[in-house]
């Protein structure tokens, strides 16, 4: 009995030490965002002397030209929200069509989607830029440095994985449901939007979270398509461009990092269960 208690205590201790270690970088960000540059030099691990400094640093960073927090936050939010809405809608529509129509074409399209999941971003990023530049010149719509272009790019890159996940789920929905609606005089698109679409909610949640985290944190695509100092900046691009212009000013850099992290941390605290579940389910499929 005693030995069991010792083991139990040991495990508890290990868990506490580990979680403290793993979370300590976040604490360091918080502490050092609340210090003056000189205080960081003296000791980067000490508790801040005056928490008021946190707000001074934050307001310096928020109003900085390179970072302009609220503007980049809004851009990130807009890009993520619009891409996700369209992605959920369009990939559900595509997956439904591909499941319910077994033809040679639907098989080929699905195979292409699945196969394309192997393609790493690096192999398409350079020609993507020139394709988009060419398209812009041709049709007269801005694809680079614009919301249109980057949202289309996220639809293209997120589409295959989303269709794949939704495809697997729709296969399990009994056909009879749709046939009943069809017999009652519902049009094909009506059947989809009124009957099928609401049933997809749980798996759409997975698609939403999987793509949402990725799009929100993505750096390479926006940095190439929008530019590091372009008109539109997402948060990761803004942080990078800020770091580039304030080299080694750690108090300000960490305050910027703090601001970039805080929305995700708040979201995680609110919807912890769904986020973990969504990301894990996405990986297993």
């Amino acid at each position, binding site marked *: 009995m005693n030995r069991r208690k010792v083991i139990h205590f040991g495990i508890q201790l290990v868990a506490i030490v580990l979680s403290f270690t793993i979370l300590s970088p976040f604490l360091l960000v918080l502490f050092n965002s609340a210090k003056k540059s000189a205080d960081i030099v003296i000791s*980067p691990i000490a508790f801040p002397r005056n928490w008021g400094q946190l707000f001074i640093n934050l307001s310096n960073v928020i109003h900085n030209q390179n970072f302009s927090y609220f503007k980049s936050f809004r851009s990130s939010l807009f890009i993520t929200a619009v891409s996700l809405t369209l992605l959920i809608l369009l990939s559900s529509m595509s997956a439904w069509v591909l499941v319910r129509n077994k033809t040679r074409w639907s098989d080929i399209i699905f195979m292409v989607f699945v196969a394309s999941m192997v393609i790493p971003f690096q192999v398409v990023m350079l020609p993507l830029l020139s394709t988009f530049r060419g398209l812009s010149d041709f049709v007269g719509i801005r694809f680079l440095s614009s919301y249109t272009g980057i949202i289309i790019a996220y639809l293209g890159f997120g589409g*295959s994985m989303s269709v794949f996940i939704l495809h697997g789920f729709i296969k399990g929905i009994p056909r009879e449901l749709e046939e009943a609606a069809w017999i009652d005089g519902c049009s094909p698109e009506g059947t*989809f939007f009124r009957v099928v679409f609401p049933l997809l909610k749980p798996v759409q949640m997975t698609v939403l979270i999987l793509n949402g985290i990725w799009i929100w944190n993505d750096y390479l695509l926006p940095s190439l398509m929008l530019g590091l100092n372009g008109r539109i900046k997402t948060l990761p691009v803004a942080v990078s461009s800020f770091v580039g212009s304030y080299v080694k000013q750690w108090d300000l850099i960490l305050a910027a990092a703090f601001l970039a992290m805080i929305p995700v941390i708040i979201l995680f605290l609110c919807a912890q269960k769904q986020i973990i579940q969504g990301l894990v389910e996405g990986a297993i499929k």
Partner: protein
Amino acid sequence: MVEEKNRKIIAAFVLAFGTFAALIALYLDVFHREAQIRGGLLVIGLLFLLTGVRLYPVKNRKRMVNILFLLPLLAAFGITVLIPFVFGIFYSFTNWNGIKFTQFVGLNNYIQMFQAPDYLYSLFITFLFTVLNMTTVNVMAFALALLCTSEVRGKNFYRASFFLPNLIGGIVLGYVWQFIFNKVFPSLVKGSVSMLTDPNLALIAILIVSTWQYAGYIMMIYVTGLQSVPKDILEAAGVDGAGRFQTLIHMKLPMIANTFTVCIFLTLVNSFKQFDLNFAITNGAPSRILGAKAIASTEFLALNIYNTAIAKNQYALGQTKAVVFFVILAMVSMTQVYFSKKKEVEL
């Protein structure tokens, strides 16, 4: 009947207008008229065309809806993935400069690439990092998963805190860790210099951050696997006198073999593709002297491709490296498919 006729007329009008607008826009495009309205006109034209097609009463309505449903995503997918992919492979055989190419160079890019010491070194260091990272992430993740499925109190808090680093972008975390390596560690160990100034230690630094960021995620997959092991079997083993360690080795491990395959391939692919942390922590520095030549010591393939094309402006060479990068990843994925198929047959 009358209603259908009206509908037909309206649809025909909408269709005609859409076609007209789109054709004017295309005319302006093809003849390079720099009219500002052509983009808007094309979009409006296409929207009208789609509405017209949707309104038009035809017998095989279902088929039309199918096409309309597939088209938007396929179009986006085509211009962002398929076309650039095909062009990308094509460009790797030319002297492309990011905008245009003037001649075919055959396999020259590939030959030049495999003769460049910095590329060969990058290939080597990426493989090394992939193997190391795959090991550390999986060992760490499995240990954490065992901890989180034991009878420890406050499991949810531990799970959440181990998982958190995975949610923040690699770029932001990379800068934070750059601070930790450059300022915090030297202040903890008096007289030491930053790990990022030594080629070997810098690699270990990236390894630490990558494991820290990724282990929580893989841990959750192991947790899901461990929880799927039926409780009654474990209890039966307990009754038969099996200890904790024995149940782990002989019962749990074989039952979650599938989870191991998933996690190992997932970490393999993700370590190989590592870019964000690499870019934000070291960006390839410090340099290592190899045969009287300075080579970026921690430049993984993804970063090497980026720097070749964007920083050094050698687009064709960068693209060639990317094609090889793709081929390696495709081989890994095929191996994975082969393994999981084989397992299915065994089951």
